[in-house]
């Protein structure tokens, strides 16, 4: 553009700065603005005007280091957060580990592995600890002083138990038909024995558990 052209009016210059700042991937310096706007423009004044325009709006023009950029008004930052809550069933590995801890506490990791017959991933225990259903107990007074795991009050709370002694015993499990692992006979419907079904296939095993189960 020839320097002889009169510069665009200030409201046009303000529009230009607005568009440039909006589209820029990083704060735009005054030098950038001078280089990009038509000759004769006064970006400093245009920026000042733009800042006034956006005062009190949902986004504001901020000076960041050498440059200028649009930012969300601080009081509205809550709009830029979304929280999603997924409800998931515990993986089979996690629920089994939890059951062993509940029935055998205090129990070491090696003992859990012995009962389950498979290695217990760090992730599974971490998950239970993070959920605050399991915590570390006293160390075992045996070689290596291994850590033990116990269930928490949060666990009792969740499962509606007053103490871990309230967990049903083996004979009660058997009476409830839960210990009968005989596959139900063809065509014979046994409401209680159906339990095995979808429980065994956990649809949403978190990745860490994928290779752990037999």
């Amino acid at each position: 553009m020839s320097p002889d052209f009169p510069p665009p009016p200030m409201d046009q210059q303000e529009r230009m700065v607005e568009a440039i700042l909006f589209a820029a991937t990083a704060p735009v310096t005054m030098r950038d603005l001078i280089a990009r706007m038509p000759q004769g423009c006064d970006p400093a004044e245009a920026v000042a005007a733009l800042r006034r325009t956006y005062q009190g709006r949902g986004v504001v023009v901020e000076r960041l280091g050498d440059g200028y950029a649009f930012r969300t008004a601080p009081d509205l930052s809550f709009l830029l957060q979304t929280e999603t809550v997924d409800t998931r069933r515990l993986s089979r590995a996690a629920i089994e580990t939890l059951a062993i801890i509940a029935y055998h506490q205090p129990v070491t990791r090696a003992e859990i592995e012995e009962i389950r017959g498979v290695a217990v991933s760090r992730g599974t225990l971490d998950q239970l600890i993070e959920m605050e259903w399991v915590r570390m107990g006293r160390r075992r007074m045996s070689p290596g002083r291994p850590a033990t795991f116990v269930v928490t009050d949060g666990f009792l709370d969740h499962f509606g138990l007053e103490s871990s002694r309230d967990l049903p015993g083996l004979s009660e499990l058997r009476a409830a038909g839960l210990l009968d692992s005989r596959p139900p006979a063809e065509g014979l419907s046994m409401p209680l024995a159906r339990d095995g079904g979808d429980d065994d296939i956990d649809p949403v095993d978190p990745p860490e558990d994928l290779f752990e189960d037999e």
Partner: protein
Amino acid sequence: MPKQPADVPYLTPVPDGPDAVAQRRADEALIVDVDGYEGPLDLLLTMARSQKVDLMTISVLELAEQYLAFVEKARRLRIELAADYLVMAAWLAFLKSRLLLPPDPQDDGPSAEEMADHLAFQLERLSAMRQVAEQLMGRDRLGISRFARGAPDKVARTRRTHYTASLIDLMRAYARLKTRDEFRPYAFDRKDIFTMEQALDRLRKMIGFAGEWTDLSVFLPQGWEADTPRRRSATAATFAASLELARQGRLEIRQAETFAPISYRQRPHEP
């Protein structure tokens, strides 16, 4: 009557002499252009434009001749045309002969005029699509004339996973682990169960002696009447067994009203 190449007007003789080279060059230029076409329909459209008339009023016959001349030139120049150009040539030759010959009243397929109309429609439609494609590309496009926010704010997406498990899940899990060790082929306690097989056995043997109506309770095994659960099991099994025998035609069942005692007798033999 098969046509000889010489009969076909669009087959111009190959020129001899110094003009031949120039002619050949011009022809090659046209043919080499084939790469620039998006197929035979596109080529036809370009040829149609040279007629400088509305596409709907185009002379399809003229167009067909133009196209066939083009293909013939390519053949003469030993330039290989893609298969679709040749298929189109065959179709146009067919269309052309149909347009020139009087309609065959026996033929119930589309008339030559219908075929020609459809070709004109296709050319116009393709031309229209070309036009709107251009208009579309000429719009204020994102990233060219209009821009999105260059540095969008990150929307913090916090994902909270809420795990659930019920006490029954826990118990089942533990039971599953436990039954892994002490697998019992049959854990159900059947000490107090009188099975239908047992009842059938018993009833089969006894019914032969029941010429008169006899109450169900008589058929219960000894020692099972006293204890309620055992009596219930034996009664149920015996009743189920009686239904099976009734089905087989071996006994008759009688009950005066709902909840009244049930009695059996052997089915009287047919006289």
